[in-house]
């Protein structure tokens, strides 16, 4: 079974080498997509002997993930993992995330920060008690998605699932769009607990508003 890990990166020269080296022993191939960083992210990634792709302009995490996923499908990956470049995810959780795919229990697996309460106590109170419950409610009401962590960027999917899920959102709305596509194609979903190391606190409320606007516009266009 060929396991490929996709790492979208933007200005992560500080973290990228450590992230690549932590993930590399656990998968068959690592693909870093540099989203037009201003620092040495791309160069450092290439020096680790992995596949490094580069966007010539900054498009966003969603676009970088799609580029990497398309490449992984071309490379005949059986399992495709999405993993952040900022060092917040633990490589040791990869085994937990891909296990349901290997055992044919799911087509796509999402890592959740909220299954085990002790894994999210470092999250700011505002985000943990207001923003994340609001995100869950909005995903439930508008997209009929019932996950404990709908905005999680740590996910793994089979090649078949990756071919079916065709997200268009380039920036942060891709998380919600991927979930919509999963529901649309009736893919088997599973959530597993993961740990997060908080060194910054991700999206703000304004980011959430922008996601909703982007998804609304995309719906109008389609």
């Amino acid at each position: 079974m060929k396991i490929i890990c996709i790492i979208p990166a933007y200005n992560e020269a500080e973290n990228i080498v450590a992230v690549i080296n932590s993930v590399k022993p656990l998968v068959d191939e690592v693909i870093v997509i540099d989203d037009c960083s201003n620092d040495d992210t791309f160069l450092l990634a290439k020096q680790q002997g992995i596949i490094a792709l580069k966007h010539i302009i900054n498009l966003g995490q969603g676009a970088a993930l799609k580029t990497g996923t398309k490449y992984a499908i071309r490379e005949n990956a059986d399992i495709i993992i999405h993993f952040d470049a900022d060092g917040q995810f633990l490589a040791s959780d990869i085994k937990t995330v891909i296990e349901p795919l290997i055992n044919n229990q799911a087509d796509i697996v999402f890592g959740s920060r909220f299954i085990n309460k002790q894994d999210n106590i470092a999250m700011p109170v505002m985000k943990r008690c207001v923003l994340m419950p609001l995100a869950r409610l909005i995903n439930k009401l508008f997209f009929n998605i019932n996950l404990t962590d709908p905005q999680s960027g740590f996910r793994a999917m089979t090649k078949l699932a990756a071919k079916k899920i065709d997200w268009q959102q380039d920036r942060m709305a891709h998380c919600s769009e991927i979930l919509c596509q999963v529901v649309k194609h009736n893919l088997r979903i599973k959530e597993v607990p993961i740990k997060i190391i908080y060194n910054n606190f991700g999206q703000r409320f304004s980011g959430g508003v922008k996601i909703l606007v982007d998804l609304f516009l995309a719906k109008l266009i389609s």
Partner: protein
Amino acid sequence: MFQQTLALIVIVFFLARLFWQKQKKQIAIAEFIFWLFFWLISAGAIISLKWLDKIVANLGFSASGINILLYLSVTVLFYLIFRLRLKLSKIERDITKLVRHIALKK
């Protein structure tokens, strides 16, 4: 009367710019026709304001013809902005496709 004249002068200026842009080939034929009709209809509306007042009054509106024109203009503006946003989104998607193609080709 003065306001109508002023409005017509402004429209004539825009029409002159439109023809100039067409001559310089800075505007596609479809765009040219659209704006030509837009400004001609606007000029027609300004000229026939008194007639518009009568129609609006007969339809039961309390506002005058010029107010109705204003409300319609704002509605049209919102619609044009909406169409612009759709166009921008499409352009962004096309750019993404190009950038991805370049990244995967390397």
